[in-house]
């Protein structure tokens, strides 16, 4: 079992960041994400929390040794459940792989919360992943799978951050300026 952790900050208010989250794809950096579909979207009548289930379709090449181990597959699928807590200004997403779930388990938790020091101008992003490979015949092979997955996480995290920054900037120019104009008139 291996773990991956990541944290960064975005210089935008939580409301902008959470809005941008739903408009994150496509972006140039995330060419591996080929489709995103909403499966379920509900506001919990008791808590007011917005809960959304999505299916993410990814296409990313894998080295030959992985293909030999697990067999080839064109697309892989991830299930994500998000919760938006407006009262506390938190957005949390929990994601798991559907593809290869019989040999590899990836459990990822992402959260967006206001930066403690600048709660209306800055947002903190944290990402945690727990990766366990258990399908291969040897511990060595499972270890290799876990290492490969961690490396891929690192690469995708860097691209993800850059991609999201460009989405935030783009939206900041458009949507949020218009919204401000509306309310200030």
């Amino acid at each position: 079992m291996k773990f991956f952790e990541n944290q960064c900050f975005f210089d935008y208010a939580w409301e902008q960041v959470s809005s941008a989250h739903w408009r994150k794809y496509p972006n140039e950096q995330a060419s591996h994400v080929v489709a995103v579909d909403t499966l379920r979207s509900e506001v919990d009548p008791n808590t007011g929390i917005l809960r959304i289930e999505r299916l993410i379709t990814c296409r990313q090449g894998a080295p030959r040794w992985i293909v030999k181990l697990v067999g080839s597959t064109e697309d892989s699928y991830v299930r994500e459940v998000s919760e938006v807590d407006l009262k506390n200004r938190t957005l949390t997403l929990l994601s798991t792989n559907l593809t290869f779930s019989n040999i590899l388990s990836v459990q990822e938790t992402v959260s967006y919360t206001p930066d403690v020091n600048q709660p209306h101008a800055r947002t903190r992003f944290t990402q945690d992943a727990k990766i366990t490979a258990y399908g291969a015949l040897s511990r060595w092979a499972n270890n290799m799978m876990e290492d490969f997955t961690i490396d891929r996480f690192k690469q995708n995290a860097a691209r993800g951050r850059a991609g999201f920054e460009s989405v935030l900037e783009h939206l900041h120019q458009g949507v949020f300026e218009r919204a401000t104009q509306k309310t200030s008139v």
Partner: protein
Amino acid sequence: MSASIGGPECTALKKKYDECFNDWYTNGFLNAKSHTNECEDLFTDYKACVMRALKEKQIMPLLEEARKDAPFEDGGKWKR
């Protein structure tokens, strides 16, 4: 806006739904003006299209398994 797993037909329905959702989320939900999903009708059509694609691609069993392990009502928290 990203594509849908169900190809161009679903993507067209998704586009309509996403536009409605994004507007509702930013201008309604975030301002605590609206708690109800105002995009229900658009979602119904879009979702029907996606479900067809999920069945075709045999993703439903994987999805159902994942839902058991990490129920939607629990926010997707894993039982183990």
